[in-house]
């Protein structure tokens, strides 16, 4: 059984069909990349998997370890082990980062049947993970993402990923807005989290990120479905030839 299995998924926002029968399967331990032109529905896929209410699923299924994801609330999906790293992490003025992290970690632990972490244990846990990602302690004292640079916001996403210990990570254009140094730090953070019981779906427009997070499988998405699947070499081909061939596909 695949870790994440998406079959013939169809979704729309308002009256616009965006996903038109998308299928893919990610096994535990694998890293899959989805590449595709702008407007192909890549971000929509990530939001639909995470449960954003603006999107209406009109057909198909998505399961995590065989369990239906689509009928769950967003927080229940997170507790089951799905994690979405946002393309545009949200600023939350007035909510301290530490309060946010602790509330999230303990909510997820509670639902998974684990004991909540005590304050000293939690602080130790966060500091250790933050250090690995080169995240300044000062950042942790600020409200969530407020005043963070693009790179800091993305590193903060990876930190949350590390804290929540998900099974399936979806990274939505994590490379957008990053310079090469920030990109390397983020990629290292992700690579450190690669594990045989964990899967990744890396959504990106450019091949650049995939030099640092090397995928096992590359999918090409166009007009709301997967139109081609191959190995890492497919990413290089796309980089050389562009998406023109896929704009009229499907």
């Amino acid at each position, binding site marked *: 059984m695949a870790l994440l299995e998406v079959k013939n998924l169809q979704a729309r926002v308002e009256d616009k069909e965006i996903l038109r029968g998308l299928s893919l399967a990610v096994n535990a331990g694998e890293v899959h990349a989805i590449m595709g032109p702008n407007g192909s529905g890549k971000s929509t896929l990530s939001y639909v998997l*995470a*449960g*954003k*209410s*603006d999107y209406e699923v009109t057909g198909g299924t998505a399961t995590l370890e065989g369990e239906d994801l689509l009928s769950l*609330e*967003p*927080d229940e*999906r*997170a*507790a089951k082990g799905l*994690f*979405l790293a*946002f393309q545009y*992490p*949200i600023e*939350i*003025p*007035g*909510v301290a980062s530490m*309060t*946010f992290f602790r*509330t*999230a*970690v303990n*909510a*997820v632990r509670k*639902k998974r049947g684990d004991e909540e972490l005590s304050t000293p244990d939690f602080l130790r846990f966060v500091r250790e993970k933050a250090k690995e990602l080169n995240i300044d302690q000062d950042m942790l004292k600020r*409200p969530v993402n407020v005043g963070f640079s693009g790179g800091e916001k993305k590193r903060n996403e990876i930190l*949350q990923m590390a804290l*929540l210990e998900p099974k399936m990570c979806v990274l939505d254009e994590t490379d957008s807005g990053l310079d090469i140094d920030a990109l390397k730090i983020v990629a290292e953070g992700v690579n450190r989290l690669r594990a045989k019981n964990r899967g990744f779906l890396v959504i990106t427009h450019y091949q650049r990120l995939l030099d640092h997070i090397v995928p096992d499988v590359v999918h090409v998405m166009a007009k709301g479905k997967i139109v081609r699947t191959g190995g890492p070499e497919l990413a290089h081909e796309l980089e050389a030839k562009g998406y023109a061939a896929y704009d009229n596909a499907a």
Partner: protein
Amino acid sequence: MNAEVKMMRTAAETQYSDALSALPAPEPIRALREKALRLFAEKGLPHRRVEEWKYTDLRVLLREMAPLAGKPDARAIAEANKNDVLSDIGAREITFVNGAFAAELSKLKGLEQGLRISTLADALKSDPTLPQLLAGLNPSKYDAVFALNTAALNEGVVIDIAPGAQIAKPIHIRHIVTGTSPVSVFGRAVVKVGKKAQATIVQSHAGPDAVAYQTNTILQLSVADDAELDIVRVQAEGDKAIHLSMTIAAAGAKSRFRSFALTTGAAVSRHTVPFAFAGKDIRALISGATLLRGKQHTDMTLEVDHAQPGGESRELFKTVLDDESRGVFQGLIVVRPDAQKTDGRMMSAALLLGESAEMDNKPELEIFADDVQCAHGATTGALDDDLLFYLRARGIPKKEAESLLIQSFFGEAIETIENQKIRDAVMSRASAWLAARAVK
């Protein structure tokens, strides 16, 4: 030609006039009270055609006057003794039960040097200038709440802080209502802060749920030059109460003033803050958090009057409205011709949680000087769906995510409280409000 229109008196207006004129009126405040009664008889309760009361029509909201409260008996004192509103802030407490000073629930022993606390009756015997102060700071202006309070003038407290005195321990004036039948309660507190003195005054209002009692309390503050005063107010009246109150302040040159109000109680409440910048270079921060549910109606009205140059005022008000509650914020900043270099900024933000909740935001600027900076902002909105989704995508359940966002919304106002113990106590009261919402 002006046609004289005589409005019909309402039942409540007649009851007020009758009940308050029957009270004994001792010297030296007899004239004051009689004048207030006359004014009230003439002008009565405000209604929606009076601009300042447009959103809070007292003629409609206050149908009948509850009978005047009697002197509290032992049972009332015992009940009041259970009140725990801000009981853990290490303050010196001055307690009024059903409007009457309760010595047994007050802590007046061992007053710090420079601090004098007297009942209104005692203070009137020794301070010949007091009647003038009690008459109001702007007597030409009619306000029904002030007129009724003055007409009923009897119980109260006068706190006198000598020039230069630094009173570290907060002074907590508690207004507690007890019992199961509706009563009318009046109270007046006067705080005089001498030159270069410093103090923190806390005022709380509490009473039983399900009893339609009515309170009318006024806090008058006179802050001398270079003095520093912190005010924290908690209005936690019972859920059927009608609460009318004012904080009237006059500040001297270079004084520092911080005021915060947490409002969670009463079916209907109106709090008016006339604040006079009477000297140069005053800094004032006036803030508040108002948390409403059910069908509560709460009106917060500020009148900040810059009469002298160099004043800086900041107003920050946050209102959270659940269910069918209604909030009113009226904020007026006046900058008079002499008040050059005034810097005034006012913000009122409302968060609508209930589908049928309503917020009326009315910021106003009246500027008569040319070299000033003034800004006001008013926002009304619901919880942001994108923020909620972000929190929920991290595993935080919906109610908890909402609580986190609501807390961050009103937290900004609570953060302005200087004293940490008081700030924590206020925050925990606000969090309790949220917790009650989350289990609903």
